């Protein structure tokens, strides 16, 4: 086989790899969702701390879910050229949707049964967020998200120990790193990607 043919074959293989990766690249932005939910958690924590209203979390989470859904819907409407759906995208969406359903069922059930307390709440929420972040990070091979999952796992374990105040501090710190900082980092990466796409277009 001549060198020219060999190089041509190698180019074909490279083309296949590049195009498959290009197809999987998404221009949709999700960093803001992490920041949005981080802020929603802070509002719920503050509302519960200052007002002691037992439904503060439920009301804040429902309002946040409706707002998040409305923003995503409006963003998609105003974005004519959407990325096509991929198996990876569907897998990640399924993990987060399943986590959301689990939390929506489990937390109110604990509340109604009278077995709810702050430690159990933080441990469950942190463990669920760790699973979703960990699975997404492993699928995407994204070390930053796996690190975020580790912080949530540590928070879930830490929530089982100490006083109520210490438990709140653990939750607030984990939200700061895994929602606010990670979300802003994601937004910076997405904005870089969009700038690169604009240059190549």
């Amino acid at each position, binding site marked *: *086989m*001549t060198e020219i*043919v*060999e190089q041509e*074959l*190698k180019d*074909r*293989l490279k*083309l*296949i*790899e*590049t*195009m*498959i*990766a*290009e*197809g*999987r690249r998404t221009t949709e932005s999700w960093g803001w969702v992490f920041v949005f939910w981080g802020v929603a958690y802070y509002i719920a924590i503050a509302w519960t701390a200052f007002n002691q209203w037992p439904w503060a979390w439920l009301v804040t989470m429902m309002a946040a879910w409706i707002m998040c859904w409305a923003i995503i819907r409006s963003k998609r409407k105003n974005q004519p*050229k959407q*990325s*096509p*759906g*991929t*198996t990876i995208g*569907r897998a990640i969406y399924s993990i987060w949707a399943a986590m959301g359903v689990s939390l929506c069922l489990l937390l109110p059930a604990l509340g109604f049964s009278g077995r709810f307390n702050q430690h159990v709440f933080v441990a469950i929420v942190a463990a669920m967020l760790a699973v979703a972040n960990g699975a997404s990070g492993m699928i995407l091979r994204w070390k930053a998200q796996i690190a975020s999952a580790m912080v949530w796992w540590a928070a879930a374990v830490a929530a089982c120990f100490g006083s109520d105040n210490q438990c709140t501090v653990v939750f607030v710190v984990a939200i700061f790193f895994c929602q606010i900082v990670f979300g802003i980092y994601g937004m910076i990466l997405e904005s870089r990607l969009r700038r690169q796409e604009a240059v190549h*277009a």
Partner: protein
Amino acid sequence: MPELPELNPVIHGKLRLALLSLLAGVDEAEFTWLRAKTGSTDGNLGAQLLKLEEAGYVSVEKKFVQRKPQTLYRMTETGRAALTEYVQALRQLLGGAIGD
């Protein structure tokens, strides 16, 4: 030009190979998205997609979304199998070349 008898000629064309590879990574794709990713002209893209469709490697669905026409392309199982065979053939040929 040296012969490459083991490689599927329908897939071997650069644009057709790029299109099949793009479609391998997604559920379905719009004509405009494929055009943006490959940087090809409407005419050339349409002609190459037609060849892939005739070979049974892609399926086409035309519909209207908010009164605008939309052409969606999907890779068929035959197309996926053909691409897999093509990649295996490429690797075999390159493996042989390394041994030469």
